[in-house]
């Protein structure tokens, strides 16, 4: 994998607060190599390591995108949900920003059934069939449609399992991470001081609480994906 320049500078990361970890009491001792100091009861993450891992992750993502792989971004924290949607739409990736239903990937057959139902409801809504039904049925179907829209809206273009999954908070999305591990899908995870770095394939130690830090990391990854895609389109 050729290393490219991803515009990662440490001052930017300090500004965004990427180096703040969680409280000292909640740490995972496996994160010890990535923690540089302890200040006022909060662990401080070593930013050089973070920068290095981030650039490696961007390289990996660029490489994969230039080969036409599909990505999935998972972030269900309330703080991060909005930025996840924006980032994914910008990068033209699939995303999950509301609750991750258990078995979304491992039970892909059932998820596909739901997606089919979603598609049928959408077409019915478009052709106006919903208005011809009695009010109660129409209301039920509309409610179903809105539910499916919130949960499956981001993966409506996903025809098969994704090739790389980017997870925003490991503690929050533990089920998603476990599913990817059983299926053998490579994962890129944002790790905080209370997470386990050995679970994901590529972990980026960073702060997952601050919106600015999540946005920064997502920015870099999205940039890498876009570059990869454009090179894929060029060389196709």
């Amino acid at each position, binding site marked *: *994998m050729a*290393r*490219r*320049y991803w*515009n*990662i500078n*440490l001052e930017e990361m300090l500004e965004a607060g990427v180096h703040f970890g969680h409280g000292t009491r909640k740490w995972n001792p*496996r994160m010890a*190599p*990535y923690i540089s100091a302890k200040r006022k009861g909060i662990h401080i993450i070593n930013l*050089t*390591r973070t*920068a*290095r891992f981030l*650039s*490696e992750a961007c390289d*990996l993502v660029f*490489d*994969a995108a230039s*080969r036409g*792989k599909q990505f999935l971004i998972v972030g269900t924290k309330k703080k991060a949900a909005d*930025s996840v949607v*924006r*980032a994914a*739409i*910008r990068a*033209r990736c699939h995303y999950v920003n509301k609750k991750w239903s258990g078995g979304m990937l491992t039970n892909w057959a059932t998820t*596909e059934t739901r*997606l*089919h139902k*979603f*598609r*049928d*409801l*959408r*077409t019915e809504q*478009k052709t106006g069939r919903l208005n011809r039904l009695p009010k109660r049925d129409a209301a039920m179907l509309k409610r179903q449609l809105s539910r499916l829209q919130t949960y*499956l809206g981001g993966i*409506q*273009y*996903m*025809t098969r399992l994704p*090739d*790389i999954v980017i997870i925003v908070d490991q503690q929050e999305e533990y089920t998603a991470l476990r599913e990817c591990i*059983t*299926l*053998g*899908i*490579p994962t890129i995870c944002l790790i905080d001081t209370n997470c386990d*770095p*050995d679970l994901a*394939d*590529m972990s980026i130690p960073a702060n997952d609480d601050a919106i600015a830090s999540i*946005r920064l990391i*997502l*920015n870099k990854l*999205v*940039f890498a994906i*876009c570059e990869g*895609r454009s090179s894929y389109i060029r060389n196709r």
Partner: protein
Amino acid sequence: MYNYNSMATAMAAALPSFSSLTPHNPLSPRLSILFPTSSKSSPSSRPFLSLSSGLVLRTRAKPSDIDTSFFDNFDPEDEIPFDPPTPPEGFVPPPSFDEGPEETEDDVAAAYEELYGPGYSGVSVLGNDIYVMDSKVKKTSAFEKTKEDKVRDGFEERVVQVRRVTKVVKGGKQLHFRAVVVVGDKQGQVGVGVGKATEVIGAVQKSAVNARRNIITVPMTKYLTFPHRSEGDYGAAKVMLRPASPGTGVIAGGAVRIVLEMAGVENALGKQIGSKNALNNARATVVAVQKMRQFRDVARERGIPMEELWK
């Protein structure tokens, strides 16, 4: 068989630091074993490449062209300098995803559709057929079902045991059937699976699906027997396997015999020491078989000629 080959070559050649002496292995053994990016597994056999049937972690081979090897040799203690390559001339930092031109929904939909096809969105901006995913749905009518499931992907199924199991609830007894099935082609791939359902046929089907998920390869010599003795245990069942000269046939009892036959092993001796439980014995044979190594691979790993192994 050849999976071990590729693993051994990769391990011997590409990872000199990967011995049992390295104290820190930040990765679980699962990932390091799956490291060979030039794995020879063909796309069709990829779903079956699993390293366990009785262990808790079920693993699968990764798509081999996504190279996550950065973390494999990584020792977290040493200092990694962060020296990014120099920015190319005229490098303009790209706008964040919030700034930048606002895209209408149609634009977004068109872009997604260009990349992935209409998928399940129900709307098609570029004029593609929105029902493109319908061919995936198999319409199973009641009549066709019996014929459809007969032909499978080259694996033969044999039922080891079907038992009626009961769950006692307030209203009475709820009966289910539990089927243990061994699946194999006679070329060295076997898998053991369990499944429960209210009907025998349903249970057999479920267990066949489960068995196909945990397939292992049996290392065999050219006389269709094992390379060496081995013992394996699972639960209270302990199984001893021993190679035999050609013409002996499979001399083993019950579950062990079925597993060995479906693997294609022609000559072997096996004994169930310990519990006689069929499922546990089947799993114990699988464990025993997984412990076996081909002489060629051991010699290559240790870096000694094969003759040394027989001294």
